[in-house]
């Protein structure tokens, strides 16, 4: 058996290598910073014959997702990627992918939302898509981006629900980190070819996502809601089997660091959560029993795993890189409070919004913030 290959790659290129490893059939793409480098790399792989896929250049993100929906309905394994306002422009068609039960996988490279324009990372774009019926992962390293895209295809195709793989613009997408690419035969074992039980086929004409009356519409929505919740065990299984085959582990629904005896728990997603490990070490050196809980899966929100993982009487410091407009604070804090209410009344939740539009989140800054939050 061939050994795994280790190279230096950006997060965007790690995503493109995962697309190649997943043997994707169709890639509709439209450029938007900071996602563009994924599409450039995938287009190049298709052009030079490394990836046997159809690359479809389209005139906008609404069309990119429409092409993804159509190709997925025809039975193809489909990937696309976007960022910020591109994701917002797709919003309507995101519902078509989830309602149509199509296992599209998309990377969203997190970037702040217009207006005013910014190119830099925050999480308003992906979290604004909370109610579209997509499963959402949030990744904290280049390697996790690679690993998660493969796991995303597996979960999506097992349950026929589209999956969004999110990671921060520039911090992840444009920074080099060592990347381990497992041998192709290991990946093929983890992710066998897509075998849809139904597809659009001219030989057997059918009409897709037609008008329904209320008695049919309501059950479709209920089934989508139930099946999204049923993704949690599949996400865990995918992470475990990926570890068994490749030896790599990024956590399953959640990822924790020094959490067992923690009295102060940092709670955040994406690259800031990787940096928070270092903040936890700083706080520990200062005599504060700190720990980290990072939801790797944002949707479905891994309520039971969070409830079971949090130490008794912990103060949870939620660091939100987004605004929950109409509420004082961020979206993650609201999600966390909603699952803890009535279940873990011993937990105190505190919240600050930071890092908006790419403001640098260093280990020292976040350690200082957490210490300050203890007095809030």
């Amino acid at each position, binding site marked *: 058996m061939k050994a795994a290959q280790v190279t230096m790659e950006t997060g965007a290129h790690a995503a493109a290598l995962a697309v190649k490893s997943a043997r994707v059939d169709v890639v509709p793409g439209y450029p938007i910073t900071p996602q563009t480098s994924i599409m450039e790399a995938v287009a190049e792989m298709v052009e030079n014959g490394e990836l046997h896929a159809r690359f479809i250049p389209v005139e906008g993100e609404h069309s990119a997702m429409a092409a993804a929906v159509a190709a997925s309905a025809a039975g193809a394994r489909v990937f696309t990627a976007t960022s910020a306002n591109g994701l917002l422009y797709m919003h309507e068609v995101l519902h078509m992918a989830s*309602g*149509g*039960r199509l296992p599209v996988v998309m990377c969203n490279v997190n970037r702040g939302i217009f207006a005013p324009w910014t190119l830099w990372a925050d999480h308003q774009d992906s979290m604004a898509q909370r109610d579209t019926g997509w499963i959402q992962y949030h990744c904290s390293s280049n390697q996790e981006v690679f690993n998660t895209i493969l796991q995303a*295809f*597996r979960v999506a*195709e*097992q*349950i*026929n*629900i589209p999956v969004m793989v999110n990671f921060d613009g520039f911090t992840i997408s444009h920074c080099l980190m060592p990347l381990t690419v497992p041998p192709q035969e290991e990946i093929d074992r983890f*992710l*066998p*070819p*897509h*075998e*849809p*039980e*139904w597809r659009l086929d001219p030989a057997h*004409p*059918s*009409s*897709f*996502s*037609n*008008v*329904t*009356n209320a008695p*049919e519409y309501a*059950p*479709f929505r209920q*089934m989508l809601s139930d*099946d999204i919740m*049923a993704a949690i065990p*599949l996400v865990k299984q995918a992470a475990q089997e990926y570890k068994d085959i490749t030896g790599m582990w990024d956590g399953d629904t959640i990822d924790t660091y020094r959490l067992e005896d923690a009295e102060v728990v940092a709670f955040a997603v994406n690259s800031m959560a990787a940096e928070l490990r270092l903040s936890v070490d700083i706080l520990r050196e200062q005599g504060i029993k700190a720990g980290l809980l990072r939801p790797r899966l944002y949707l479905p929100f891994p309520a039971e795993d969070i409830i079971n993982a949090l130490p008794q009487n912990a103060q949870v410091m939620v660091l939100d890189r987004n605004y929950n407009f109409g509420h004082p604070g961020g979206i993650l804090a609201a999600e966390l409070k909603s699952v803890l209410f009535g279940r873990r009344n011993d937990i105190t939740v505190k919240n600050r919004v930071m890092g908006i539009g790419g403001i640098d989140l260093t280990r020292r800054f976040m350690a200082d913030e957490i210490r300050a939050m203890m007095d809030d």
Partner: protein
Amino acid sequence: MKAVTKAYRPISWPMKGAGGDTGTWRTHRPVVDIQKCTKCQICWIYCPEAVIDREESIVDYRYCKGCGVCAAECPTGAISMVKEE
């Protein structure tokens, strides 16, 4: 990868009535006066719902939505729109 759950998808196959009993939408029904009808088939050509029989000018009221196109196009005035009770 194979699906592990049964996903119910909004798929329908082309067949008569796949869209439901659309005749219930009607406020006015086309009534054909057989004495005036010349069987020219213009109503059959224009009917957007294909609910008029080509040979006998009989309307399938289960699916006719009552749009009135047939009555407007009939060259002999054989079709009149009658208010549904």
